């Protein structure tokens, strides 16, 4: 029983990170109807931004303090938001009305470009670096359970951000415009919504979330490298599909479910070798039996 709760906590913390990344996928998919493959690389850039910012911030604010961690995270998120907006502006916008396949291939191209440029010896190099401790790490004991302070940070941050996202999308003017663009881009633009501005905003928001998720991910697994985004990125994409792509609560739910299932499967001796395959097996399963996802509504493609 203790082991069960221990695994549950680990799974929730992992799933929370997936959920944050999945939000970015699902928002972009909702607005533009394509998978932003480069999202996972923005996550990596977020972690690297924090890595390079940390020494600088340490001169201004005391290291390991809450204020410095917050400042680093906000700056990294801002940098990634700009990168996300630039990616959309330079690579995706020229293709706005092209076949989806073209955009998809471009997205893969952008992802490969970021990965291999960052692996180049003049940029980040391909070796793994130790991620600095942004906050002091403690283990809290509750009976037999061990809860790492990082897990608490991850869970609290995720809950705050999910609430904030919900507020932005449901209760602000920009959020309403986002939903309108997602519903029907053409009609939205006829209603006076600046579609380009909304798409940029969506990319900015999604990339900022990815950056924060990247930092949280790096805090838990204290090593970062230019390819670190691929695995969590793929999982998060699967989480987004699992919950119903384009659906914000679905992305959060999918992330949590995937994180928990993966952690439990990793604990079963015979299955642990196949841990990497489990997420994909779940994806294939959901696509066959419920292609709209857990919370998604099945839609009929109009001709």
């Amino acid at each position, binding site marked *: 029983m203790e082991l069960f709760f221990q695994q549950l906590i680990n799974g929730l913390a992992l799933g929370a990170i997936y959920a944050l990344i999945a939000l970015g996928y699902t928002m972009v998919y909702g607005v533009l109807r394509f998978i932003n493959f480069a999202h996972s690389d923005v996550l990596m850039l977020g972690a690297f931004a924090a890595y390079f910012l940390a020494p600088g911030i340490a001169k201004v604010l005391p290291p390991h303090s809450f204020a410095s961690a917050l400042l680093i995270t906000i700056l990294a998120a801002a940098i990634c938001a700009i990168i996300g907006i630039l990616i959309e502006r330079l690579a995706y916008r020229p293709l706005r009305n092209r076949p989806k396949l073209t955009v998809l291939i471009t997205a893969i191209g952008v992802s490969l470009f970021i990965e291999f440029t960052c692996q180049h010896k003049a940029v980040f190099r391909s070796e793994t670096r130790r991620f600095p401790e942004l906050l002091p790490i403690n283990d809290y004991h509750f009976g037999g359970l061990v809860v790492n302070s990082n897990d608490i940070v991850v869970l609290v941050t995720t809950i705050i951000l999910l609430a904030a996202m919900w507020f932005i999308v449901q209760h602000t003017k920009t959020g309403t415009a986002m939903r309108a663009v997602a519903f029907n881009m053409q009609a939205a633009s006829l209603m006076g919504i600046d579609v380009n501005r909304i798409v940029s905003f969506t990319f900015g928001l999604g990339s900022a979330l990815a950056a924060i998720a990247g930092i949280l991910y790096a805090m838990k697994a204290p090593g970062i490298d230019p390819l670190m985004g691929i695995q969590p990125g793929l999982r998060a994409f699967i989480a987004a599909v699992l919950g119903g792509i384009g659906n914000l609560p679905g992305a959060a739910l999918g992330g949590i479910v995937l994180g928990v299932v993966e952690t439990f499967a990793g604990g079963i001796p015979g299955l642990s070798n196949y841990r990497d395959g489990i997420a994909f097996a779940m994806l294939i399963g959901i*696509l066959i039996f419920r292609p709209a996802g857990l919370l998604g509504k099945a839609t009929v493609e109009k001709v």
Partner: protein
Amino acid sequence: MTMHSGAKRSLLIAIVVAVALAPLLEWIVKTHSGNYFNGYYLGVLIDIAINIILAVSLNLINGHTGQFSLGHAGFMAVGGYTAAKLTLSLQAAVPVWAQPILFSAALLLGGLAAAVIGLGVGAPSLRLRGDYLAIVTLGFGEIIRVVFQTTDFFGAATGLPAIANWTNFAWAWSLAAVTVFVVACLVNSTYGRGFIATHDDEVAASAMGVNPVRYKVTAFVIGAFFAGIAGGLFAHHKRFLSPTSFDFMKSIDIVVMVILGGMGRTPGVIAAAIILTVLPEALRTFAEYRMIVYSLLIIGLMILRPQGLFTIGKGRTAKV
């Protein structure tokens, strides 16, 4: 399926040339080794043929049928491992004269195994639209790699060493010619129009009585079959298989060939396969820039020339 006698003749000529050239090239390598043409160049020529098979078969899926598969290396792995396992376990028992028979059986079995897996993956996932399919095939490729990496029967992470060196110029180029021939005949046949129809407009196609899912699955299975054969050739050419030879990057390599050559245009894809095999060899010193250039090439092509680099005119035809 209609067979054009002209195409048949060119296939025969291609095979005869490949078979005739093989001893000549091997003789040159043997006598002039180290001079202007050595075993390394012969190896590159075989690499080219294998890549042509891979690119042309992926072109049937990605180009002609318009389904974006990112898992071609997975099928190649299935074919390679199956073929290698068969020859490894039987080669000691088989006399020298029967080796070509064993080799062709191994290649065929590898292709069939890949086709069966292709059917298993394709049948459920091809009901999905483009970007989902890309992810599912990507995921499948990963699963395949994980399975080979953890199964001791297939050498696990250390791989399969000491595979017989049976792939030669004649085998590789003959099979490349067969692949081009089959794909071309298939796409140009009455039946094959269904692939193009599926690519152009699924809804219109199904309104005309073409079942898109059936065509997608067919394209997928045939593409997987040839990828499996390429895997078998690859195994008996490199003489060593490891799961890392078939990772996501291998799939991307093949995808880039198809995109560069122009999706659905076989001559362009062949040209791209040749260039993208030779260039990295010629530019070994710039290896670290290779993937950066690839990715920029993909983005640039999609924005400026989505029809591919080696295509003239705008008409989209399935002609070879």
